């Protein structure tokens, strides 16, 4: 009845107010086929004139930027990290492992897409250094690294970087890294603490210490220098953080809110009294070491 009244109203006001949908906008043959299929299967209501959702065409060129791809697939790394963590609860400092993947998946603030359109967009294009850092993070998820010595570790890193450079997903990169590690042979199953593995090639999947009595001994040179969340760290700083259980988030907080005091060797001691943590940075802002307690001497 209401529809009939509406019809009458429309005709009474003249044809200019007729709300005809008009001709369908031009759509791709693939979309057209999907629409027809949905109509034939009764998946859409009779008279539906819109387009049904279709998955992305795998043969279409992917014109997303590299950071966008990393963004879109970031949650994949998170899942991978979770799986790996579950496998290694007893052995690894989970926090250590988790923060290592931060540069890749930290941006995935909305992994389930609940607020599509409201997600912040990744800003700058990833530099080679960032790709290298992301690759290092992914490599750290692979328990067998350093197979065949330094060459093995480099091969794994290279395989991961190659996938990232050509725009592959983080999960693909990790898979490529695992394949590279596996092909290096049985020797790759050696324990991370195996002294025959060069220290620079040992994965970060080693135990992590904690404050006070929970500190562990980390041999000098265990960790290589790296970048976490855009901040450079020396290998020594990573060693200290690992043995004392100091997370980069604590370091960042200290740098943000701590009290800075110039120190020897063109360094600055930044003391965060809330966490009783000192972070020492050099003139370029690189973190050279960290320690609990006030090292500023003030």
């Amino acid at each position: 009845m209401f529809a009939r009244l509406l019809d009458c109203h429309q005709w009474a006001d003249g044809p200019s107010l007729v709300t005809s949908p008009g001709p369908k906008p031009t759509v791709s043959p693939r979309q057209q086929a999907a629409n027809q299929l949905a109509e034939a299967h009764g998946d859409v209501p009779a008279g539906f004139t819109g387009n049904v959702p279709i998955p992305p065409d795998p043969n279409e060129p992917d014109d997303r930027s590299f950071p966008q791809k990393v963004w879109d697939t970031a949650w994949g790394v998170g899942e991978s990290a979770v799986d790996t963590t579950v496998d290694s609860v007893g052995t690894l400092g989970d926090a250590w492992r988790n923060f290592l993947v931060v540069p890749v998946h930290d941006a995935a603030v909305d992994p389930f897409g609940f607020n599509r359109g409201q997600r912040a967009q990744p800003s700058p294009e990833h530099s080679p250094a960032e790709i290298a850092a992301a690759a290092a993070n992914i490599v750290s998820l692979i328990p067998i690294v350093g197979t065949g010595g330094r060459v093995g570790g480099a091969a794994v890193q290279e395989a991961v970087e190659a996938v990232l450079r050509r725009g592959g997903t983080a999960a693909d990169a990790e898979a490529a890294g695992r394949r590279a590690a596996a092909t290096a042979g049985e020797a790759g199953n050696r324990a991370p603490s195996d002294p025959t593995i060069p220290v620079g090639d040992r994965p970060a999947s080693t135990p992590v210490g904690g404050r006070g009595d929970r500190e562990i001994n980390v041999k000098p040179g265990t960790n290589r220098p790296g970048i976490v969340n855009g901040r450079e760290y020396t290998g020594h700083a990573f060693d200290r953080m690992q043995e004392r259980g100091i997370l980069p988030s604590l370091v960042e907080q200290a740098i943000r809110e701590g009290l800075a005091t110039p120190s020897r060797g063109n360094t600055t001691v930044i003391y965060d009294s809330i966490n009783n943590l000192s972070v020492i940075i050099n003139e370029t802002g690189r973190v050279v070491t960290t320690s609990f307690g006030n090292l500023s001497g003030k």
Partner: protein
Amino acid sequence: MTDQSIYRLEAEQVNRDYCDGKISLHALVEIFERYVRERESERASDSETLRGAWGQIEIMNAINQDDPSNSSKNESKVREVIQEFLDLLP
């Protein structure tokens, strides 16, 4: 001999070992930090000052490990900060 003077005697021996090349600066830093921790656990009034002095040695250690090519150039500063730490020990 009191426990406190033992700290100093031991620390001076450690320093001699470092100067003789028997131990690395990193090893010295680790040993000296144990003294600092013990003083901190004793809640000694000088523990904060000791921690700060130890920090200066650790900074030189960190700088040397980051750039070993400059370590010989930094040696006089290293000796200086070690002496400052020793002077603070009871």
